[in-house]
């Protein structure tokens, strides 16, 4: 058994996901061990408290277990796919809640911040995280804020427009510029956007 466990460890994510398709629990466990921290970190960033974050991560990983066949390697890495599931499920959950959290965020969003990228201020642990962090640091605060509200907090562009008292076109424009700036960051370093 231990020998088999070691064998799973040498498999690439793409191979593991193929095995998960045929209900291989050990392959799934290996994927979980590789990506649960990133998934939970994203869930925590979106949900803001531990229990809801664990519920979201659990929900997402069970979707990975049931829906491994829907993974498409040409659309990105397994890690990105898992995180996109967490993100999409998180958005669904956030939007289905009339939560106090969003009210609170509305208050916070209306107050000026001396450091709008505060949410990303912790020291990041790996190079990819560092790179992303650096890319995000190149964004003007008003662009970063809008990306955060959309991506992590599940606000629609119309809601962000209302929340920040900005014209919808401005919100869309900042989204566009923010994403472009992130892409430009990688292109300027002759690096591909991680997928």
């Amino acid at each position, binding site marked *: 058994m231990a020998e*088999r466990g070691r*064998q799973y460890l*040498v*498999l*690439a994510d793409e*191979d593991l996901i*193929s*095995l998960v398709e*045929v*209900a291989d*629990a*050990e*392959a*799934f*466990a290996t994927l*979980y061990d590789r990506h*649960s*921290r*990133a998934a*939970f*970190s*994203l869930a*925590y*960033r979106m949900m803001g408290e531990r229990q809801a974050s*664990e519920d979201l*991560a*659990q929900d997402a*990983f*069970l979707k990975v*277990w*049931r829906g491994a066949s829907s993974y498409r390697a040409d*659309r*990105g890495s397994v890690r*990105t796919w898992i*995180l*996109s599931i967490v*993100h999409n499920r998180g958005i669904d959950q956030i939007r289905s809640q009339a939560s106090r959290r969003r009210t609170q965020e509305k208050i916070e969003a209306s107050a000026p911040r001396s450091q709008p990228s505060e949410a*990303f201020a*912790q020291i990041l642990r790996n190079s990819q*995280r560092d790179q*992303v*962090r650096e890319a995000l640091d190149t964004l003007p605060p008003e662009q970063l804020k809008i*990306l*955060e509200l*959309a*991506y*992590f907090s*599940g*606000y*629609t*562009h119309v809601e962000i427009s209302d929340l920040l008292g900005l014209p919808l076109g401005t919100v*869309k424009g900042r*989204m*566009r510029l923010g*994403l472009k700036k*992130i*892409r430009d960051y990688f292109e300027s370093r002759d690096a591909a*956007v*991680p*997928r």
Partner: protein
Amino acid sequence: MSEMNNERFDDLKDAYVLGALPEEERLSFEEYLAAHPERQAEVDELGAVAGLLAFSPPEQEPSPELRSRVMEVVEARRVGGRSTFARVGDYLSFRSLALGAAALLVIGLLSWNVLLLDQVQDLQGQVENAQGQVKDLQSELEVARAQQSQTIKLKGSWAEQGAIAEVASMKKNQIILVARNMPSVPEDKTCQIWVIKGDVPKSSGLFQPDENGTATPISNSIRKADVIAVTVEPAGGSEQPTSDPVLLAEL
């Protein structure tokens, strides 16, 4: 809401990849995308940029209980009582290797080896992994061997002594040699696989016989070959066979 068109699609694609479209608009966007698959690539590319945000939150450690809960559900839903490798056989069947259940089992076993081998540069490490699997699954091999028809059994002097060696075709032209009950060879010797076309033998892999069995990838295509053979050669292999084949199969 405005009707979706090219211009509107461009206007909304950033919000789409950020998950910031209201439901109705999102559905409209996706309908348009489905009707214009040529735009999928740019959405994917933009989505990859937006997806980077997922890597940015400060790291949080999930509790061990979360893992237990997830695995509890997974274990409850897995296919009961079936081996990993039998399920790998199913996986292959989904990819059009519909060779019958028993044949799938064998190919599943062997494919598992190949999946591993793709990941490991060191050939010796690959062989060791394969050996472990072969040992675990000998009984399945016996059953499958009796029924399947996609492997080629090698004959020769070692086969007459009880060695069992088979070559199996894998997907993407990958082939593998599985051998059991092989006589041992001295430490300064090794078994060398040859793929022979006409009079030209190509060295196609080395392995050391093991009491638990071996599984060795064959590094040359057998599609147009005439013979597969195994000879005993000095450790490290030879450029040309230096002894008579102990195992061989005409293709």
